[in-house]
């Protein structure tokens, strides 16, 4: 009798229980990464094909993109980039064990290294929030 498959699949990335901060930072890092990739592809197509075809096509494309809906999208891309960059820097440091401390024999109640050093992750999020607000200010104040 074959045992029944019980994998969560990609749903397990999104929700599998009441986990804490780092699990959801991982999810947000993935989502912003995919969002930035999608934007990058579109951006690459516009700046190459449309530029290639000459000034008229370029200018009409730019004016079409000045639509407020696109401006909101641009702001989201900027905020996503800020988050992904700073979380990425945190990941680079922590994935090589910097700022995680030494192994200690476990004494109940257990506190794993990520939780002990969580204040660094919180500090990073605070910096991201501040930068996102600065970008928001610039976006609301207008632009090209």
């Amino acid at each position: 009798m074959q045992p029944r498959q019980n994998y969560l699949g990609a749903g397990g990335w999104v929700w599998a229980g009441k986990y804490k901060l780092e699990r959801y930072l991982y999810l947000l890092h993935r989502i912003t990464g995919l969002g930035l990739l999608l934007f990058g592809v579109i951006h690459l197509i516009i700046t190459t094909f449309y530029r290639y075809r000459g000034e008229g096509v370029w200018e009409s494309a730019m004016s079409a993109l000045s639509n407020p809906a696109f401006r909101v999208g641009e702001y989201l891309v900027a905020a996503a980039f800020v988050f992904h960059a700073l979380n990425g820097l945190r990941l680079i440091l922590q994935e090589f064990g910097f700022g995680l401390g030494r192994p200690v024999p476990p004494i109940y109640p257990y506190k794993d290294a990520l939780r002990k050093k969580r204040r660094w992750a919180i500090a990073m999020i605070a910096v991201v929030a501040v930068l996102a607000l600065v970008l928001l200010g610039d976006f609301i104040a207008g632009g090209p």
Partner: protein
Amino acid sequence: MTESSTKQIAFKVQRYDPEQGDAPHWQQFAVPSSRGMTVLEGLIYIKENLDSTLAFRTSCRMGICGSCGMLINNYPHLACHTQIEEFHSNTLTVRPLPNLSIIKDLVVDLTPMFNNHKSIKPYILRQDAQEMENPTAEFAQIPQELNDFLQFAYCIKCGICVAACPTSASDRLFLGPQALAQCYRYCADGRDEGQQERFSLVDTDHGIWRCHLAGACSEACPKGVDPALAIQLLKRRLASQALGLRKKQQPSSVVSPPAETKPKIPFPEFTVKGSE
């Protein structure tokens, strides 16, 4: 001394019987629970009084054998280590661990996890094969060296970290946090010389670099083993090797037991004279 009051707690248990052929479904049981009662005791009550066909693994009932890992209220716990009262709720949902195949009811197939564990060679490897197979003496190790990996040696192979890991959820070929943490435990052990061999086992497309530091494994681990820390330290070793920064570490030397023992402390005088 007041009598501890009993409350009726509803246990919603996921049932699945492969011989019946139907899909997994819920079954509800009313369990009288009192202060200090664990979820495992609730399941044993169900099995003894309400439905003896309920299948689950249990052995030590004190959080050291690793048999009773289950998803309780959507979070992986050891059932013997989890009190019913800590959820402050009249309903408990009990499901088998995810990311491992279900054999029946709450029993999951841990074989893939054990196979991954075996594949990273979880034993001391020495260059001197003769000494390894037929040891003549001990390997020297001081307590400071032991502290470098002792935390990761406490793993009870319960499978909760594998159930918590988002990569294990989607990637069937992923080694899993348990195997990777044990790989570090052996690489960091001063007595071991098999680091290069193990590196080639984890440095693959579905190996250590598919870990993205979600930290759920360490968060859920019931013994505080912190597999996430072990995996990141292993990544550090791999990266310093790739960059050529690794210092050659001397493995533990082989020490014969001392030829002379210390002089024995004299046996103390009896304080109570026997009747002779």
